[in-house]
Structure formats: C-alpha cells, structure tokens
C-alpha cells in the first residue's frame, strides 16, 4: 500500500478531482457540528477535534425511506441508492464504529440499505494530532491513528498531508488524483510515528475494560445503576450522537395518497422505546434504560460479535446536559465487580 504526500495548497484541486460526492466537516454556529457535502467554497478542512453529530448519518441516515407506495395501491418501491460518497476528515474512531456496526447489519440477514451505503462510501480518515478532553479510544481497541474501517488515512503535517492507503478502494481513489501527489520519504514516515505517539500520550482518560463484559450481567441489581442514572433526563443526546448506536424505529407517513414507510433513529433512553401497546414497559425507569445502554455496549455486543460497541469518541460525555460520564460509570462498574 502506498504513502503519498499532498501539499495543502492543492486541497481544492484534490477534492475537485475526486469522482463522487465529497463530504467534509461543516462549521455552523462557530463549530464543526456535522459533515455535509462540499459546497465548493472550502479551501481547506476546518479546525476541528471531531464533529458533534457523527458521520454515521451518511451511511445510516437519520431518516431513511424503506419503500414508498400509494395509499390505494399495493405497489411497493424501494429507493435506489447509487450515490458514491467520499467522506474526508472522518476520525479513526468514527470509521472504526462503522466497522463495528456493520457486524450487526450483516448478522444473519443482510440489511440492504446500510450495506449499500457502506459499499458506496470511501472513507478518508484524518488521524488525530490533538485528541479531545474526553477521548478514550485507546482503552477500547482504537487509537488516534487506527486504520480499522478506513480506506485511506491522512496525517496532518502542518503544510501538507500524508496519505496512506489501506484498502483497494483507497488505492483506486488515489489513482484519480495521482498528479497532485508525491511519494513520501522515510523521514516523513518517521515524523508520522512521532505524531501518533504524541497523540496517544495526550489521551488523558482511560477505561479498564478487563472483565467488564463478563462481569456486567452479575451487577444487574447493583445500587450503582440507580446512582449513575439519578440525574439522567431521558433525552437521546448520548445515543443520537454515538457513532455505534444503531437502533431505529419504523414508521409510516402519508400525505394525501402518497405514503412511505421509513426508518428513523431511535434511542433506548426514551420511555416509549420498549413500551408495549398494552402499556406494560419492561424497562420502566431510567435506571433500567441506562443499565441497558451500558450493558449493550460493553457486554451484549461483546457476547454476540466479540467487539465492544463503544469507540471512545467521548461524545456522550461532552454533550450530556447533566454530566453523565460513561468513563466514570465504567470506573464504578469496575469497582463493583
């Protein structure tokens, strides 16, 4: 696999030559809130640690039409998914999350929508030089320069980018812009190693996951769940901003004779998520719901797919309105084991 250099001056040219819709982090209200299609005005990537809304929405749209029909007819047509997308600047944790979630969408029955989106997307990641305050990717199997799930990884070397291809798809992408790149020398690769090490050292938070997956079910009735969920508001911020949360709801909507069935993100932190039509709710309070969220990520998923469904991006910690901190919860879990 190749390692190439791209001068930052050539950025507009670089993104202009790629075949497919390019998505980059977009700054709104003074902050990189989410990824959006390139508008042509950007001359470089913005300054960002990570976007607030993860790029999972590109492969798993918040609302996606499953099929449309006419209210008085029974002909169902699924939308065609055929747009090639290139996500530039996705952080390694978010790319890793896609790889983790893909396991579920491939489990037993393939999910045609997710897999089609995933097939059509090329991930050009940007390694983190300055991880955020609440990043703990190194504790859950990732790292600031993890290549899992990525097709290309970029390193920010101040005035230029180092691009390393990881997959065939990435290799093919670089072919399209060959003229703009130059071969990277050994010195650059050494510089890269230093950057990675420096970034890893900047990660201040950590979780000791040893024994958690096996131990969590044993803590079912532990008082810790009451404690950590006491201040929970029951909103969906933690799950909607989580790159690995993948639960959805299916609903119908109509306007006149036109109708569609769509799926839309749902959150296990909502009360009606598990509520039966009879009114009975197997998870009646936020204690059970918080417990399920942690268990799902750190125990059930490990059981099924041998992976922790958390990539340590820190979003749920950063944006929880009441400072519910998953690292702290896991520390308490560990203590209770």
């Amino acid at each position: 696999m190749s390692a190439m250099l791209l001068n930052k001056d050539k950025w507009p040219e670089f993104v202009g030559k790629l075949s497919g819709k390019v998505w980059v982090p977009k700054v709104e209200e003074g902050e990189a809130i989410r990824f959006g299609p390139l508008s042509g005005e950007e001359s470089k990537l913005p300054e960002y640690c990570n976007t607030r809304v993860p790029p999972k929405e590109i492969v798993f749209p918040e609302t996606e039409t499953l099929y449309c029909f006419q209210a008085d007819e029974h002909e169902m047509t699924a939308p065609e998914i055929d747009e090639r997308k290139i996500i530039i600047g996705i952080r390694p944790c978010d790319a890793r999350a896609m790889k983790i979630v893909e396991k579920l969408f491939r489990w037993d029955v393939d999910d045609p929508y997710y897999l089609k989106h995933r097939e059509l997307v090329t991930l050009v990641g940007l390694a983190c030089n300055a991880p955020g305050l609440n990043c703990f990717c190194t504790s859950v199997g990732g790292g600031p320069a993890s290549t899992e799930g990525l097709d290309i990884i970029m390193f920010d070397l101040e005035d230029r980018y180092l691009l390393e291809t990881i997959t065939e798809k990435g290799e093919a992408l670089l072919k399209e812009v060959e003229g703009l790149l130059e071969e990277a020398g050994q010195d650059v690769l050494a510089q890269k190693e230093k950057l990675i090490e420096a970034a890893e050292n900047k990660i201040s938070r950590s979780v000791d996951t040893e024994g958690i997956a096996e131990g969590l079910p044993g803590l079912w009735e532990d008082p810790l769940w009451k404690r950590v969920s006491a201040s929970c508001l029951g909103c969906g911020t933690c799950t909607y901003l989580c790159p690995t949360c993948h639960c959805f709801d299916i609903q119908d909507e109509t306007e006149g004779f036109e109708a569609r069935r769509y799926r839309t993100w749902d959150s296990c932190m909502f009360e009606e998520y598990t509520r039966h039509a009879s009114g009975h709710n197997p998870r009646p309070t936020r204690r059970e719901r918080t417990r399920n969220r942690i268990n799902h990520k750190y125990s059930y998923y490990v059981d099924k797919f041998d992976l922790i469904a958390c990539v340590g991006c820190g979003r749920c910690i950063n944006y929880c309105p009441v400072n519910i901190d998953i690292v702290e919860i896991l520390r308490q879990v560990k203590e209770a084991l």
Partner: protein
Amino acid sequence: MSEDFEPNIVAFLCNWCSYAGADLAGTSRIHYPANIKVIRVMCSGRVNPLYVMNALQQGADGVLVSGCHPGDCHYMEGNYYARRRLGIFKDLLEFVGVDPRRFHMSWVSASEGHKWKEVVEKTVEDVRAAGPFEGFRRRQIDW
C-alpha cells in the same frame, strides 16, 4: 405570483355561528370563492393550533378559523380562549417566517352570510397574494 394559482384553504368553522353563517351564504345563493375546504368543529375553542400546522404541512396554502362573536359563544367562553391561543400562535407563525396572510381568524355569526362572503374573499385574496406554500409540505423531499 401566477394568476392561475388557486389556493387551497382549510377553514375550521364553529358549529353554532360560522358554519351556520356559511350555510346561510349558501342557501341565500351568495357567491364566494370555492377555495375554502370547510371542517366543522363544535367551537372555535376546539381548534388546536396543531390542526392549523398540520393543515399547512399537508398541503394547505392558508388556514381560516372562524367562530362566534365575543360574548356569543354557545359554550360561553370558548371563543375567548381561541382568540388568545390563536393570537399567540399567529405571532409565532409570523416569527418563524410563515407569511401572516396565510392564517386568518374571523367572527361570523349565523346571520352574517354576507360577512362570510367578505371574509372568504379577503382570505382567498391574501393567500393568493402570498402564493403557493411549498416550504412546509410534509412531502417536500423525494420519498
């Protein structure tokens, strides 16, 4: 604005006054524009602002709510509540950027067939001037 544009207007009429007023207009053969789709409710106080919003979402270009004159409400005070509620709602719609000409409220009594005609004409004229309302349609994106 296109001259051919025929607005779609949903009107919520109270059973006791405005509906009877519209009925009177009909039986008296007073001509008024046919753009109004009437929905009869028991009282203007029953009109939840969500109805107005939903009508706009489902393709109405304008909405009219009409009830009894203050003091004449069959339920004594329903229209007073409606006035307060929908007055605030109108301010809200305007602040969000919905053309104020799209939402009207009126008092039409059972004997005011002519007033009904005037109200409808004014509403249709206003909505026509405001043009088609596509921005808020539920089906604005390709499903």
